[in-house]
């Protein structure tokens, strides 16, 4: 379990992480979402003790990560696939990591096999593609068979087969009772991977809930109407308290009353409707809207 409480990090006058509080529970894949520059990577570094917080605390299974003398058996992390030395072979990189945590060398072969790098293990990392480096980073995170795993944008550079494999791996790790925390700036990636979400914007918490709750809270619906006399219909709907925006081809986008209510209003005023479609915003749109709000909200504040 990862517990973050009032976590704050300032770099000079920039506040990268602003009084962030959330909990990441075991048994789930938790997505960590936010636009670029929202403070996701900084938060992960604070959790892993690479950066010291300006205020607040971050603990992993009850104590700060840096309180440990060895990390791999407690937490596996992939922060950046580039955090390796290009001159070493993948196998040597993992052997050194394993040895530092007293993990048997045989485990290196296991994780290499698991991520599908057995054949490339003897080659120098310099020659690896981004996708191969991601796999190597995931192998490193799995070395210590840890109960808590953190991944920062792990899907970058993976081919479609790799993306499917990673999603399956994350779900399996969560099903085994582990805490899996995965950051991304793309809602579409998380939609099929995570069952819980922590959403941040400009370093602040926007949402900490299940994927379904997030969809229900954030996703609004509107109704697209095509009518013979759109202008009259718009006047009627506006009078009834709806928000009406003109859509393409003379259609109207109506927010407020649902499709049934719009049909009733049209009948009362003897207006002919050609079509009536309910549209639910996608998670992607919900995410964009929520984070856009947070940016807008913060932009008015004195820096």
């Amino acid at each position, binding site marked *: 379990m990862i517990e973050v409480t009032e976590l704050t990090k300032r770099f000079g006058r920039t506040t990268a992480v602003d009084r962030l509080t959330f909990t990441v529970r075991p048994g789930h894949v938790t997505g960590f979402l936010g636009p670029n520059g929202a403070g996701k990577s900084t938060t992960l570094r604070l959790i892993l003790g690479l950066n010291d917080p300006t205020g607040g605390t971050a603990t992993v299974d009850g104590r700060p990560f*840096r309180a440990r003398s*060895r990390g*791999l058996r407690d937490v596996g992390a992939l*922060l950046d696939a580039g955090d390796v030395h290009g001159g070493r072979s993948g196998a*040597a990189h993992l052997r050194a990591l394993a040895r530092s945590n007293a*993990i048997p060398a045989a*485990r290196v072969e296991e994780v290499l096999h698991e991520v599908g790098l057995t054949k490339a293990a003897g080659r120098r990392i310099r020659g690896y593609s981004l996708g191969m480096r991601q796999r190597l980073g995931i192998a490193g995170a799995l070395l210590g*068979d840890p109960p808590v795993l953190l991944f920062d944008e792990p899907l970058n550079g993976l081919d479609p087969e790799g993306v499917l494999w990673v999603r399956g791996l994350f779900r399996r790790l969560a099903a*085994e009772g582990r805490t899996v925390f995965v950051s991304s700036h793309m809602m579409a990636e998380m939609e099929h991977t995570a069952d819980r979400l922590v959403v941040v914007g400009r370093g602040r918490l926007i949402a900490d809930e299940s994927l379904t709750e997030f969809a229900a809270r954030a996703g609004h619906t509107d109704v697209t109407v095509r009518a013979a006399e759109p202008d009259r219909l718009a006047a009627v709907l506006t009078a009834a308290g709806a928000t009406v925006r003109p859509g393409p081809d003379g259609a109207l986008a109506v927010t407020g009353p649902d499709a049934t209510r719009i049909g009733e209003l049209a009948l009362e005023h003897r207006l002919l409707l050609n079509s009536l479609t309910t549209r639910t915003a996608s998670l992607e749109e919900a995410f964009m809207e929520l984070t856009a709000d947070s940016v807008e909200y913060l932009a008015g504040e004195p820096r």
Partner: protein
Amino acid sequence: MTTPTLTTATPSTGIGAAPRTRLRDLLAAEWIKLWSLRSTAWVLGLSALFVIAANLKSARYTYDHYTVGEGDPTTMLQVALGDSFTVIAADVVMIVAGSVGALAVVGEYASGLIRTTLVAVPDRRAVITAKACVLTVVMLGYGVLTAGVSFVACQAVLADTHIGLSLAHPAALRFVAAAALFAPVCALAGFALGALIRHTAGAVVSTVLVLFFLPAFFNERYRWSADLLHAMPLQAWRRLSQVDLTHTLPVAHPATVAGSWATYAAWALASVAVAVAVVHRRDH
């Protein structure tokens, strides 16, 4: 260690229970890291050959130009010693060892590997200590090999001239020890500068500047200047490689042997302390 209440992960693999945390594991990991870079063996091997060859050339010159019986014994003692580890050899060792030391830590920062390392081992002091220990052992081995082989080979060249020495000679032992220890001292100085600067070119250039050019700014005419000069590793090596000062130009404030050994020790210890302190404090 308390058992976390909410984690239910059951290890599915044979990695075994967490053993006690041992420095030995970190030393082994750093050893793997150092030798899994091909450049390590190449740089150390080729430079060692160059150093030994340069010293042999010097001994050969003496052999070719020395008439047996010439010169007084103390002068020829110094000549025989000087041939087995020349100033050129010392300069090469200084630059190679300093750069290897700087790269041992800059290599982690420039590549970003340091973050992977510190997530695996959050105890930063232990990581840097282990790195410094492995560097010291390897560079001491390099120093002993280059100085030792040079000495034995060069004295063999000079054997016919009757000025060749054996290691049993007290002056010879100090001379070889000073040359052998020069490598790890310079490597640790580079290590500290690497930890401070974290930039490949910047760290290597400043290591060369500090070790090689900084001593040129000082002389032995004034007390303060002599003190600073004697605090430089290069000057310490120069003094330790002199049997005595009877045949050198008299100066106002000459260096002492004990002071020069102290300079070696101070650079080594201070360098490790600086590297440990900066890595421990900084954000990564």
